[in-house]
């Protein structure tokens, strides 16, 4: 017969164990400084451990719900892991797990980003966030890399630049304030502008934010925060793929945050309030699975009805059950077994940009489906196939087609450099070499195309310049303003 320990014994066991540890701690000297110096000691800058900014952005905005208090969950409601337990008929059969991940160490020891967060309206329908960091790299961490199309370019002193955040509906301003970078983003243009205008004359935190309530001021914790853990399962089924995530102890992905997405709709999952929303590429549904955990189902293959059905079939599972599922993922099966292009309605056939012995770099024009959140958009996709399998998926540019930086792709025949350009380019010069660069237009409505150039054997190509057919160097792409002199990014 099992005898249950009295509750107090557990506390005593903790206390005794910690006492043993503490008793072994050699405490530091307590001497006071004789006199203070004027300089401050400087340690090495920390390194950010960061992943998944795009997902955090999709959920609304990182950090918002840090300050929200709620009712502590009853202990019986604690959920550590979730999985799809009841398979909906829409999936056409039993899905299999193709990938999994758990992340809990994404948070900086001394958060380098400070945040001010205001909101207004009964439903907090408008919000504005001011971010401050010492380097643009830190803010890039918060908002995603510049080649995600967020327009995050460091301004010069005294200048206020405009951010482009097309997929979110936000607007933003960026400026340099002494040695600190500041970014204001939000749904309210006048408030964002007020912050930016105040920044040019003094302290932006003193801007006129009448009508808004300052509800948070402090460090911004990014994906995942100190107390959070993200666990994900990636499924594939006969009719498409989807992912199931649990933000455990992490409140950044609350339904309130998702509700701020322009296409968000309130719905319900197993009696709990949920928000379903989407963009041109995917749909996702988010709900509170208990009072300190948020569940998310996301798919670029399925629409809202199927996502709801999947969500209804998700239930808590034990850690062991979850580990068994994660362990069943085939190392050969990846979520990229087919190109992102097939998540859309394709236009025509794929165009081969470059090919060789059992490999090809392909591009295809696509349009967003009628049941997507942004139907009828035309975009361009690209990927690399080796032995008829998708080896590298560049994804698709839909709502904000822009230049993709050149990348060096390893192929069985050696490296190929590929990228997107809006202009016709005669040649690219590098390391004393000069190669013609034909830009392949994939669709007449898309003002840019792909190029792919096979590098000569032994070539490494790290720095490049583009030249026009008239023999003049092209420092700036007139279509985008992007510089055409730069560095090739290696895929691996």
């Amino acid at each position: 017969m099992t005898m249950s320990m009295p509750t107090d014994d557990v506390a005593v066991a903790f206390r005794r164990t910690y006492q043993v540890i503490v008793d072994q701690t050699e405490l530091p000297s307590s001497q006071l400084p004789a006199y203070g110096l004027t300089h401050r000691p400087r340690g090495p800058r920390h390194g950010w451990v960061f992943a998944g900014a795009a997902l955090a952005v999709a959920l609304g905005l990182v950090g918002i719900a840090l300050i929200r208090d709620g009712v502590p969950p009853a202990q019986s409601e604690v959920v550590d892991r979730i999985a799809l337990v009841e398979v909906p008929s829409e999936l056409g059969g039993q899905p299999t797990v193709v990938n999994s991940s758990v992340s809990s160490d994404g948070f900086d020891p001394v958060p380098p980003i400070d945040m001010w967060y205001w909101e207004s309206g009964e439903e907090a329908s408008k919000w504005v966030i001011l971010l401050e960091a010492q380097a643009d790299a830190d803010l890039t961490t918060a908002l995603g890399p510049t080649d995600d199309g967020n327009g995050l370019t460091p301004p010069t002193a005294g200048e206020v630049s405009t951010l482009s955040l097309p997929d979110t509906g936000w607007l933003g301003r960026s400026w340099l304030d002494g040695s600190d970078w500041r970014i204001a983003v939000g749904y309210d243009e006048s408030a964002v502008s007020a912050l930016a205008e105040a920044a040019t004359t003094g302290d932006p935190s003193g801007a006129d934010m009448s009508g808004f309530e300052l509800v948070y001021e402090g460090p911004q914790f990014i994906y995942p925060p100190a107390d959070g853990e993200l666990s994900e399962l990636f499924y594939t089924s006969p009719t498409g793929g989807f992912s199931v995530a649990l933000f455990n102890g992490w409140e950044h992905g609350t339904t309130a945050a998702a509700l701020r997405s322009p296409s968000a709709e309130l719905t319900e999952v197993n009696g709990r309030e949920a928000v379903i929303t989407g963009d041109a590429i995917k749909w996702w549904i988010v709900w509170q699975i208990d009072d300190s955990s948020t569940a998310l189902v996301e798919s670029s293959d399925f629409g809202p009805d199927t996502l709801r059905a999947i969500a209804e079939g998700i239930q808590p599972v034990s850690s062991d059950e979850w580990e068994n599922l994660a362990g069943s993922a085939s190392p050969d099966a990846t979520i990229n077994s087919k190109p992102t292009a097939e998540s859309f309605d394709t236009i025509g056939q794929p165009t081969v940009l470059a090919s060789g012995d059992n490999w090809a770099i392909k591009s295809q024009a696509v349009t967003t489906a009628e049941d997507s959140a942004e139907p009828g958009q035309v975009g361009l996709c690209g990927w690399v196939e080796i032995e008829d399998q998708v080896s590298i998926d560049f994804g698709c540019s839909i709502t904000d087609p822009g230049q993709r930086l050149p990348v060096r792709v390893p192929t069985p025949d050696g490296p190929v450099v590929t990228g997107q350009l809006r202009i016709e380019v005669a040649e690219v010069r590098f390391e004393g070499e000069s190669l013609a660069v034909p830009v392949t237009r994939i669709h007449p409505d898309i003002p840019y195309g792909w190029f792919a150039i096979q590098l000569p054997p032994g070539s490494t190509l790290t720095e490049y310049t583009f030249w026009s057919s008239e023999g003049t160097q092209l420092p700036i792409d007139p279509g985008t303003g992007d510089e055409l002199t730069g560095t090739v990014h290696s895929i691996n």
Partner: protein
Amino acid sequence: MSIVQPYARLLSGLGVDDADIWLKCKDDLARYAAVLIGPGDAEDVVSTVFLRVLDRRRLNELEDARRYLFRAVLNECKTRGSRSRVALEPVDLPAPQPPDPQPEILEAVLSLPLGQRSATFFVYWSDMSVAEAAEMMGVRPGTVKRYLHLARNKLKGVLDDHVNAD
């Protein structure tokens, strides 16, 4: 290595207010770090945190420097690896101290994730309320309750097994 030298170096760059804050917190920070990452690394964690914090701001500029430093210690320990194990030397506790915890109990406590270890340290060793522990950790009270629930479940299972074995 002498433990005096690094702290003397740290303190030499401080204003009086910062030094006062630091001296009031450092022992508690070292104990906290010891529980999270082990006595051997505790001091290194605390000095690293101190340098890192002062790289960005003065302690007396912070609204609650003590709370901030505790969070920074937790996060430094996370950065060094949440899976890192506390290494303990054999210890002789003076009488009439309670006996050392059983090895399996020690093992269970030290295998807890940092968040759970942190919550149990504040609540069961420092005698803080759940709300106070949440403040120190920068999380919601509900999160601390959750950590306590998970940690207690883990240890309760070990204690039950121990009682049954006896």
